[in-house]
Structures are given as structure tokens and as C-alpha cells.
């Protein structure tokens, strides 16, 4: 029963004495203690049970009992007749290839699928504590090259697919992963710069961080899509996806810098003094002694920043880049399927949820694990 989410670890202290007695596992006792402990609690419980029951029944009616799962071709008349009463899940098998991979050549779509799996494997490997060593950088480099080969092709007998045909989940994962992979070192440098003793460097870093954090991400994306070409010399034409990617790197760099700065502040002064006493240079001192401790302090907030960043990649919809959300929105432009956008949004929401939920679980597990000593 406790598998959905974990119980609040420390409820209001007034009740903890009462809940401590629930060692015995009898159901009635459990109910009395947790749902009907007092008159107010009982009223709330009954009210919630009634409301929840009603909501669940109507949700099941819409999403399961009245739902239509398959349809022949574009014959959506059956779906239209039950609109509002039941879901038309038939839209998902019809459109899922487009939602996941956009306009990537249909017979080649195993390639982006494989690229997505590579991403997932990469995330999984990076999350294991036993893999946190220098070789991880090489694994990342290899994986990113592999993904590039899979997506572009052009060698090993793979046909070349240009960037403007990419779409869907791989684009979301590329924007998020490359944004973090380049934003992270940038964030480290800026965080160090913000704590530098040199006033000019410090103010440059402060200016960068505050400017980026002070404005909405959309205005940065507008800048990347509209203003960026104006700032380039003649003849230089950078692809739209790459421009958005640069905006994301700058955005991630500013937010990660603030998180890392928090970690740097948590490193005791004595560590600096000890490193100085050993006669280490600035970069050795920070690279070997300060940063490893600082980053270990802030791993949970870093993962939270990653989650926020992953969700924020969906904003490229506004500048017309085909990420997962844009392909979902585009897939229902088709007049035959237009009324069934709710179903498509639910499908895409589940994909985003799976990624973010996995990350947030992971972050919570790290937090409950032993503190760095």
C-alpha cells in the first residue's frame, strides 16, 4: 500500500506519538489510527473517499470502459460519437511514430529509437555511484559520438538524415543532455569566477548569471531564433536546432553556477588553507580538493535543476523546433484526429513524467543516503 509515494517522514509532531503505536499490523487498527483518529479526521476521510470514488469511477469510465482502443484507418466517426464520454486511445497507435520520432524517415526510425536507448543507458550508468570516476567522461564522449552517428548517419552504410528532419523524443533528449553536458563545465567556471578575488572577473560572472536568471527562458529562445542571425557575420548560417542548443547551454550554465556556488560556500575555509599550505596552484586546489567536496554537497539540488531543465526543453515549441511536445501538438493538426488532443497530451505527459519521476526518486534516494562525512 505504501508503494505509490512514501509517507511523510515526520508528520506534525503532535500526532507522531499517536502514530508510533501502530506497530501491530491489524487492518482495523490501522484504519482507526490513520483515517478515523478523530472526528475531524473521520469527516475528512469520508469526504475524500466519496470524492475520490466518484473521480475514479468517472476517470475509469472515460479512460477504460467507454474508451476505443483501435480504429480502422482514419475512420474516426466512432470516436467522435463518444467524445466526452470515452477516450479515443486509437489516436496513439495511429500517431505514436510521429510523436516519438517526428518526420525522421519512416523506415529508418530504428536509429532514433536506438539513440534514445543509448541516452537512457547513459543516464543509468551516470547515476551509479560506482561509475563516478574519470572514465565516465570517456563513456559520455563515446555515447554522444554513437548518438551522432545514429542520428546523422552518412557512414557505415547509414543514409544521411539532415537535422531538420529530426524530431520527437530524440530532440528533447539531445537538447537536455547536450545542454547539461556543456552547461555543467560552464557553470563550474562561472561559479568559481563568482567567488574569485579579482573584481573584474567576479562582476563579469555576476552580470552573466543575473542577466540570464532575470529574464524568462522564452526571451532567450526568441533571441536565439531571431536575434542570433543578426549578430553573425555574413555567410555564417547556424542551424536553428544548434542555436536553440546554444541558448540552452547558456541558460543551464547560469542556473547550475548558482547551485555549484552554494556547494562552494559549504566547503570549510580550512580546506582552502590546507591546499594553500601544500603549495597547490589555483586550478589544482579547486580541481582536486574544493570542487569534489562542493559538488558532493549539492548533488540533490543539482538533480532538481536537471529535472527543471528537462521540463524546460519543451519551451522550444514556441520557436518551432520539433521536440516531443511540438510533435505531439502537430500530430493532432490532422483534421480527422483533431478532437482527441487530450489523449495525445496524456500520452506525452506520461513520457515526461517517467523521466522526471525517475530523476526525482533518484534525488530523494541520494538525500536519504549517508551524508558526506
Amino acid at each position, binding site marked *: 500500500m505504501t508503494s505509490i*509515494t512514501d*509517507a*511523510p517522514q*515526520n*508528520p506534525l*509532531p*503532535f*500526532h*507522531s506519538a499517536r*502514530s508510533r503505536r501502530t506497530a501491530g499490523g491489524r487492518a482495523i487498527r490501522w484504519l482507526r489510527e*490513520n*483515517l478515523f483518529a478523530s472526528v475531524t*479526521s473521520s469527516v*475528512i*476521510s469520508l469526504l*475524500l473517499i466519496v470524492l475520490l470514488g466518484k473521480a475514479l469511477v468517472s476517470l475509469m469510465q472515460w479512460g477504460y470502459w467507454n474508451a476505443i482502443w483501435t480504429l480502422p484507418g482514419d475512420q474516426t466517426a466512432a470516436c467522435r460519437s463518444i467524445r*466526452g464520454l470515452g477516450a479515443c486511445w486509437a489516436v496513439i497507435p495511429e500517431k505514436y511514430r510521429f510523436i516519438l520520432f517526428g518526420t525522421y524517415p519512416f523506415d529508418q526510425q530504428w536509429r532514433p529509437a536506438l539513440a534514445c536507448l543509448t541516452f537512457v543507458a547513459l543516464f543509468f550508468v551516470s547515476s551509479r555511484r560506482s561509475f563516478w570516476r574519470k572514465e565516465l567522461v570517456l563513456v559520455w564522449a563515446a555515447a554522444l559520438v554513437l548518438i551522432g552517428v545514429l542520428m546523422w548517419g552518412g557512414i557505415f552504410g547509414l543514409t544521411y538524415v539532415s537535422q531538420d528532419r529530426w524530431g520527437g523524443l530524440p530532440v528533447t533528449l539531445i537538447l537536455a543532455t547536450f545542454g547539461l553536458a556543456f552547461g555543467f563545465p560552464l557553470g563550474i567556471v562561472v561559479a568559481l569566477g563568482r567567488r574569485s*578575488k*579579482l573584481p*573584474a*572577473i567576479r562582476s*563579469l560572472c555576476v552580470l552573466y548569471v543575473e*542577466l540570464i536568471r*532575470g*529574464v*524568462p527562458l*522564452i*526571451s532567450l529562445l*526568441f*533571441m536565439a531564433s*531571431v*536575434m542570433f*542571425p*543578426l*549578430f*553573425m557575420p*555574413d555567410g555564417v548560417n547556424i542551424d536553428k536546432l544548434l542555436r536553440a542548443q546554444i541558448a540552452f547551454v547558456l541558460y543551464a550554465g547560469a542556473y547550475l553556477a548558482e547551485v555549484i556556488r552554494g556547494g562552494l560556500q559549504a566547503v570549510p575555509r580550512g580546506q582552502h588553507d590546507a591546499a*594553500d599550505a601544500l*603549495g597547490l*596552484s*589555483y586550478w589544482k586546489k579547486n580541481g582536486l580538493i574544493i570542487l569534489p567536496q562542493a559538488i558532493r554537497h549539492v548533488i540533490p539540488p543539482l538533480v532538481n535543476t536537471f*529535472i527543471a531543465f528537462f*521540463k*524546460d526543453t*519543451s*519551451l522550444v*515549441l*514556441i520557436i518551432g523546433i520539433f521536440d516531443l*511536445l511540438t510533435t505531439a*501538438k502537430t500530430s493532432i493538426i490532422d483534421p480527422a484526429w483533431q*478532437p482527441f*488532443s*487530450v489523449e495525445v*497530451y496524456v500520452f506525452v*505527459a506520461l513520457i*515526461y*513524467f517517467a523521466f*522526471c*519521476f525517475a530523476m*526525482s526518486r533518484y534525488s530523494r534516494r541520494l538525500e536519504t543516503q549517508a551524508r558526506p562525512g
Partner: protein
Amino acid sequence: MTTSTSEFPRRRRLRFSLGRQQIIDLFWQVVMVGIAVAIVAFLWSNALHNLSVRRISTGFAFLGREAGMPIADTWLAYSPKDPYIRAFIVGIVNTLRVAVIGIVLATVLGTLIGIARLSSNWLLSRLAAVYVEMLRDIPLLLQLLFWYVLMQGLPAARAAWRPIEGVFLSNRGLVLPSVPIAAANLWVIATLVAGLIATYVLRRRLTALQMADGKVRHLWPYALILLVGLPALVSLGLGASWTITMPELRGFNFVGGLTLAPEYFALLIALVTYTSAFIAEIVRSGIQAVPKGQWDAANALGLRRSFVLQRIVLPQALRVIIPPLTSQYLNLTKNSSLAVAVGYQDVVSIANTTLNQTGQAIEAIALIMMVFLTISLGISLFMNWYNARIALVER
């Protein structure tokens, strides 16, 4: 960087030449600033060149020209014949309208859910946890599109839902009964606000006096005069009318009442529910951060539970809550710019249209940045002031 280890300290000697370390420091700073200036200069000269090639004018002169853009949902009087500057002001008001109301509603909802998560009632706390987890892990833009699609799927005005008498929910948005706001009403509201401030100042004075001599002084007679008496007098004196107008369906649309357009309503719901999930977590961790001994000590003194929560636990929890809450308020304000995705015309959406009409991208984006930096600074200053007020005074 290894200061003081390589050199012997030279005490009290006036030096007019720079030491070795200082020269290195100066060198790096000059190099970094030089690189930054060079990059900016390079981009700027490119921009000037490109703008002249494309015959795009520069400067803010366009603000005075006729905008010619329709804005559907405004609180200020506006017509497409008005200049761009007017359109921008309308956009800023629209941004503030959704941000301020969103912040208030998200704070209330988030606090309730944060307390619900700590409830001893298993079902309530679990539901609150599911709410938080679900909303936090789905992109806001997706939620916004979802709400907007649901709004559009509502029945037409003629078959509108009527949950309560006078409230209509249809694909035209939410229509509520309202009070027509005339100049007299505004004066009454202004009196009420002044009364609130005066009551607050008076309360501090009375508390300070009580601290000094220990005599109990009652606030309520003054509060009654300031908050009820004076506004009522002003209302009678100016003859303000407070009759509530009920919206009515005439033909295909509603007449009277206050209409929240579907775009605005969807944006408000999405922002409030999304941000409330984050605020709930902040409130929960804030209350949990108050040591259990504080509850025990208060219990030992025999204080009432509501008093303990109000006077002992919440003031301490607030110190933990306020800084992350500030950044959530800033996030909500910045996220309100997603309005452009559903066609609610906030300042970003209007700047975007301006950009498309005039081609003056740099000016349009500079205006967005200026507006948001100002709003962010305003919220930060206010919250920092509040934070300093409630901060622990160490003796």
C-alpha cells in the same frame, strides 16, 4: 593565487610599484574583460552591418508609431490605432494581472497542500503527495496546453455549465458576477487600503507600548473605525453603488459580470496548480525544520494548539520558507510568459508581435528583458525586506 606564501609580509611600507601577484591578477582581469569587450564589439558591428543591409531601423522611435495590433483581453482602454508604447503598457498590465493573482492563489493553495501533506490523516497526506508529484514532473507548457484544450472542449455559451447561480463556465471562459467599478468605488477601496496600513502601524505601536509598560491595550475599536467606519462613510458620502450585476446570456454571448477569457483562465490555472506543488514542498519542509522540542516546550507550557502554530512554529518556519518562496514567485512571474503559447497577450506576446511587424528584434527583446528585470527586482526587494523583518534577531 597563492598569496602570502611566496612573499614575506612587508609591513607598513608604502609601495608605488605593484607586486608580482598583483601584476598577474591585473593581467588576467585585463585579458578577460578584453575578451568580453571584443566579443560584444564583434557581435555589435555584425548587427549594425546586418541591420543596415536589411534596412531595419534602430532605436526606440517605433514606440510612437501606430501599433495596428488587436489585443483581445485588456483591462486598459486600447484600440489598434494606439501607438506601440500603449500596446506594451497593456501587455505589462496583462503580465502583472496574471502574475499577481497567480502568486496570491498559488501561495494559498500551496500552503494548504503543504499542511495537508503533514496531516495525520493517511488518505489526505497521500493525496497531497500524489498531487505534488504529478504536477512537478510534467512540463508546465504541456499542462498549460492541456488546460487550454479542456477549456476549448467546454460547451458553448448557450449550454454553459452553471455550478452556482450567476457563474457560467463555457468555451468563452469563466463568467462571474461582479460589481461595476466607478470612481467612487475606487475611492472606497483606497480608503480601505489606507485603513489597513494605518491599522498595521497602530498595532505595532500598541504592541511596543504594551512591551514598555505591560498594560493591555485593545486594537479592535480602532480597527473597527479604520476598516469599517471610514470606508462606509466615504461610500455614503460619494454615493458609491455596490449592487452586484449578474451575467446574463443574450444571444451567443454574456452581458454583464466579469469575464475571464479562456486563455487567461487556462494560464492562471496552469500557473497556480504548478507553482502550488512547489510551494507545498517548501511549506512542508519549513514546518518540518522547526525542531520538535519547540512543540514539546509549548505543550509543556499548556498553550493552545492554534496559538502554538501561530506564534511559535509558523514564525520559525517562515524563516526557512521565505527565501525559496521568493524564487518560486520569480519563477511564476517568468513562467507567465508562456502565455504566448495559448495566445494570451502578455508583454512577451506583444513584444513578439512587434518584432514580427517591425523587425526590430533587439529593441523588442531588450524591452522584455527590462520589464522582467524590473519585476524580478521588485519582488526580490519586497521579499528581502520581509525576510529581514522576520529574521531571527540574535542578542
